[in-house]
């Protein structure tokens, strides 16, 4: 493996809009709001941005094709601006591209911005694909909850966990995220919910009930990146740096080859392994202060704890119920509310997760602030468990 980009890229500014049903904002407004916050945080002029990457997953319903919407909204004049898309891992993809640009020495300042305007679809949930291409001839038109719900039955079967016990652990995942979201002024869902309400909620896709599913939101988040030397020159004595950023795309074996039992997400495991190697992390349970996982559904977060090596296989339900990943637990997960309550504007989510880790590293997280934060992990998952793209990034301070 190459040396990677550990500590070759610093984050000097970040911004994130409030997520939610932003009837008041168009995609241009969301991009401008996130960017202006990041620009002020970095103490830069917009003309200093030398290259930009826009992450947007669903161009057919909201922001529009190409990177021109970003260039237009921010009036980025004459610089290279690219659009990237990797389903729900799009935000991390934008961060990865901008990081590589800085690490390579191609530019001094790069912008990564993710945005999604989902609530112009006229209904809840994600839009359906309508292309009429080869896969449409055979692949089920399942919803996102339907795709992820399948983890539950397979996980229970593999580990011999009764569906009622698994459902309770899943409910705790959502209960915890609602507790956290209530403390986050930018979160979409800011109301604590009791366990019984979660357990008795209407079924969406067996066994996922309403509260097992994340919100569908509008929002934008962004990061301005530079080199650690330049960051120090801007007054950051111990800048936040990228310790690792890894991506893994399935080659299709989970869905077409018989070795996968449906109870875990293989791409997460591969991306995490490489990210820990890049960051020099030997024991993620001790070395990572907190985690932002892609909790699109409660069962996703549950299996992700094992996929990231934060719980032994088959033990995540018990670790969750014991409170290990609660806000006051040993290794908080989704301390900002996660996709579940902060919201999930698809292309922005990876950068929203980075925004929380960045805020925690700098001691800016308000009521959610942890006492000591050395490194945090961002897990951003695109697609479905059987056909996924996983991104694992790690941020920390440069000492």
């Amino acid at each position, binding site marked *: 493996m190459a040396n990677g980009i550990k500590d070759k890229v610093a984050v000097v500014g970040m911004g994130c809009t409030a997520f939610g049903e932003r009837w008041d904002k168009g995609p241009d407004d969301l991009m401008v709001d996130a960017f202006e916050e990041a620009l002020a945080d970095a103490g830069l002029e917009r003309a200093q941005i030398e290259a930009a990457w826009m992450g947007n997953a669903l161009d057919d319903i909201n922001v529009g094709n190409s990177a021109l919407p970003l260039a237009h909204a921010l009036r980025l004049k004459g610089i290279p601006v690219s659009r990237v898309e990797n389903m729900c891992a799009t935000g991390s993809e934008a961060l990865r591209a901008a990081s590589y640009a800085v690490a390579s020495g191609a530019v001094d300042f790069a912008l990564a911005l993710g945005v999604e305007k989902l609530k112009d679809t006229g209904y809840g949930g994600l839009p359906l694909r309508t292309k009429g291409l080869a896969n449409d001839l055979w*692949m089920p038109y*399942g919803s996102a909850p339907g795709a992820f719900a399948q983890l539950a039955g*397979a996980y229970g079967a593999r580990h011999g966990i009764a569906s009622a016990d698994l459902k309770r652990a899943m409910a705790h995942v959502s209960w915890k995220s609602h507790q956290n979201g209530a403390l986050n002024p930018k979160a979409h869902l800011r109301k604590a919910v009791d366990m019984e309400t979660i357990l008795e909620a209407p079924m969406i896709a067996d066994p996922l009930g309403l509260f097992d599913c994340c919100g569908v939101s509008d929002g934008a988040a962004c990061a301005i990146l530079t080199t650690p030397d330049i960051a120090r020159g801007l007054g950051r004595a111990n800048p936040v740096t990228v310790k690792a950023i890894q991506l893994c795309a399935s080659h299709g074996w989970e869905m077409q080859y018989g070795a996968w039992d449906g109870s875990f997400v293989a791409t997460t495991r591969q991306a995490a392994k490489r990210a820990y190697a890049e960051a020099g992390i030997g024991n993620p349970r001790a070395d990572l202060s907190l985690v932002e996982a892609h909790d699109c559904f409660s069962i996703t977060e549950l299996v992700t704890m094992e996929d990231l090596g934060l719980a032994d296989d088959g033990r995540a339900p018990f670790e969750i119920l014991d409170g290990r990943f609660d806000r006051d637990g040993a290794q908080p997960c989704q301390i900002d509310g996660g996709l579940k309550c902060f919201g999930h504007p698809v292309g922005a989510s990876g950068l929203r997760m980075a925004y929380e880790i960045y805020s925690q590293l700098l001691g800016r997280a308000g009521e959610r602030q942890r006492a000591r934060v050395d490194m945090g992990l961002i897990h951003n998952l695109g697609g479905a468990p059987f056909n996924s793209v996983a991104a694992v990034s790690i941020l920390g301070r440069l000492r």
Partner: protein
Amino acid sequence: MSGNDVQKVDERFVAGVGAYAPLLRLERSAASRALKFSGLGGRAGGRRAVAGWDEDALTMAVEAARSLTGAPRAVVFASTSAPFIERSHATLLVDALALDRETRTNDVSGSRRCAVSALLDALLGARETLVAAGEKRSAKPGSPQQLAFGDGGAAALASDRGAARLIGHASLSHDLVDIYASREHPDPYAAEERFVRETAVARVMVPTIEKACAMAGVGPSKIAFAAVHEPLAGCWRDMARAMGMTAPNLASDLTQSLGDLGAAHALFAFSIACAKAKPGDHILLAGFGSGCDALVLELIGAMPGANEAAAMFRSGVAFDDYVRFLSLTGELDLDWGVRSEFAQKAQATVLERYGRDMIGFVGGRDAKGNVQFPKSRVPVRPDADGLEPMQDVRLADETARIVSATADRLNFTPDPPFWFGLVQFDNGARVMMEFTDFDGKGFCVGDAVRMRLRIKSHDKRRGFRTYFWKAAPAQRPQIEG
């Protein structure tokens, strides 16, 4: 009358039979209760077979024909409710059964007699010919036909050898307008029942059947089982009395339990007759509609597919939700909300490249023996690192089990919930699939499933549909009564 040229029939046989009924059976009494205020609806006894939203005349014909082995040189599709006007269903049938593409194909229609007519033609011809019938006829709520009709499929294979020998036949062309449907009036329009009953029995059915028996040299009293499509329920009693025939008519039982299956009806009943008969028995097969075709066959051995057909008759799930029935039959157009608005246009160019593998459920075996679906130039096998040739492998008849499953209540389907999940085939292939034939128990990890050809997408705006296979429970529940 034609067929009165008494000549020795060449030795031709029915070599196999098949039948298919959809899972669901509406209790006619439920419809009768719902329609009580109006006094409409027709017969209140028994049940009628109801196709799933993803079934049509083609899929049911395919299901009926699947059990027939062999390599027919010709395929005939028979139906009065075929989904396409300009697109050959027999050609789709060839692809769905993965038959040789040089197989001759023909669609027949025009009356519900068409399948029996096609079978007789095949028996009088020289080729090995598969006749597959499917029917899913529409009828207005309140009309007697809505409850009298049923959905289903049936098939028979004509060959130079087989288990039932044709020993006599007769045909009559007679434009008796008992019932019609037209482009301008797609739902059936019926003439007065007593007129139909008296005319059809006396002027169409009895003379034709008697002629066929005479040709066979078999007196009516020597017929062991009848598979006679009645013009209307109860006609058999009048016919039998007029001819001195005492055989039970299995087509009448079928009407009571599944409904009038149109083009598939007589062949379905014939399949059951073959299961009940013993070698040496004579079976009368007769189709009705704009005339009559009557065949007398002698069973000379166990008929392939007959027991499976009889088992199909006895399995299913009864339901009494008349509104669901109306929705399934398309007579009630529910507002399913914005999630149902997604377009499902299929591209002809894509179908040209992949369509045959899809409707035939053909995957590929790579150079190291792993089976996958769909095929790819670089195999999915983890240790594959380049191009490999792939050998076609049909998955439609392979056994499989569920790896993961869910009932998706967010996704639109015309008959919620939308079940889907990962399916592992015993031969190594695995496919993310829709599930169908939900029988109330649900689908669980480890459940055995079998493949059923179904409608995959239905583009109502453009009047087009695509077909693919779905996983259904391996066993159907037995139905009482």
